[in-house]
């Protein structure tokens, strides 16, 4: 899921300084799961806004804020409250915020900073394991992504900073290449070590990404 967190309140204060009436939007998917933009957080935001002398005209938690058409439908159901507001405050990832801003003419204020595509290690603890590079190498690396979990994204083995098998960038984490090496060894496979991996094709990751299912996929 997309991991996001509430922006610093001072930043929100600034962003909302010229708006008195606000409509609040949350997201029932990722932002709810990482406790940044669900029912509970929308309610807390409303309480905080009251302390800032703001009026809340209404609120909605959209099923998946990143779904542009669903967001439009949900906003239509709250047409009057949205009309009444000076701005919409959105507690969703950057993608969700833009679903909203592409559906309304009004000012949209994002309440969250979006960080990464995260796995849940345990409740409240998220780790980035994939950075969506468009050309997945996991089948050769024993299911451990060097593009993401090595801070340098190296493709041909560890850097000179690996110390006792730990990462130069954070001694608390194990070097991604050590983990790949050990798991491949345990599986008695050479995997990625059998070849020199050529430079990555970053054109696979050109922004903005566009993808279209044709005939229901391949």
């Amino acid at each position: 899921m997309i991991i996001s967190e509430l922006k610093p309140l001072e930043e929100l204060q600034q962003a909302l300084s010229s708006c008195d009436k606000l409509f609040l939007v949350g997201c029932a998917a990722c932002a709810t799961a990482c406790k940044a933009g669900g029912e509970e957080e929308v309610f807390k935001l409303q309480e905080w806004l009251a302390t800032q002398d703001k009026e809340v005209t209404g609120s909605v938690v959209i099923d998946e804020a990143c779904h542009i058409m669903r967001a439009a439908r949900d906003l239509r159901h709250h047409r009057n409250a949205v009309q009444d507001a000076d701005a919409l405050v959105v507690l969703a990832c950057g993608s969700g915020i833009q679903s909203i801003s592409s559906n309304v003419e009004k000012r949209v204020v994002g309440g969250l900073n979006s960080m990464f595509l995260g796995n849940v290690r345990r409740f409240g603890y998220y780790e980035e394991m994939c950075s969506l590079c468009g050309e997945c190498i996991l089948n050769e690396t024993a299911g451990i992504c060097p593009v993401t979990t090595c801070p340098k994204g190296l493709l041909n083995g560890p850097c000179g900073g690996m110390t006792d098998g730990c990462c130069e960038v954070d001694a608390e984490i194990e070097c991604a290449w050590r983990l790949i090496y050990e798991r491949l060894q345990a599986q008695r496979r050479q995997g990625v070590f059998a070849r020199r991996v050529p430079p990555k094709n970053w054109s696979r990751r050109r922004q903005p990404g566009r993808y279209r299912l044709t005939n229901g996929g391949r």
Partner: protein
Amino acid sequence: MSQLAQQLASGRFVVTAEIAPPKGTNLVSALAGARKLQGVTAVNVTDNQGANMRLSSLALAAQLQQSGTETILQLTCRDRNRMALQSDLLGAAAFGIENLLLLSGDHSKFGDHPDARPVFDLDSVQMLDMANGLMAGFDMAGKRLDGVPRFFPGAAVNPAAEPFELMFQKVTKKVASGARFFQTQSVFERGSLERFMAAMAPLRAPVIAGVLLIRSAKMARFLNANIPGVKVPQPLIERLECAGDPMAEGLAIARETVGWARELCQGVHLMTLGHEDHIPEILA
């Protein structure tokens, strides 16, 4: 052919040292420092070392090279994508720079611009392949070059790294990708150097052992805490701690390491960090 390439080919023990470009445009002390290094085979010019922004290594190396000091241009993958790396290498060739040390580079987190976006478009193996491609007359896109560079590409290694086999598979890749020599991370233990050199034997690539002048126990602790890949062992720290004259002890340690290198390796790379005047003592 560079002097470095010639001397390594002829089996002569080589000595390299290093110079860091200034923070700013004042080249006076860097050029003066290089003049003090007469007698070394070639001088490494570091590239935003430790991820601290400084004058470009290519600019200083070009100056040195033109004033008659042979250089080893260091180039990291941290700050440039594949296009910039290729242009810089062609530029280096235009200035007569042949020796290269091609590195991944310390992560931006360690330096004075921790907010910078680290690039790492290539890794060091891929950069070696690229340099060899340029030497064969083609860029990474397969386009033919008008004027072909001549390089003597080298790579870095930490001979004491664990797990050893994991580190060594990358050394093997680097040789396959055209690394013609290795310069090592600072060496502190004879045992790990012996093990490394034994593994290197079949690869036939010359190894220049890194020797760091450690001036005090405090400096050793600082290095351990702050420099990726440097691990001064506890017994050495204690030696420096107990010594009446830590600088003299540091010089003695460096001299011992040079002794191991003379037995086991093809050269030494001296990192004296501003104390270049002590180089003759270390080599004595």
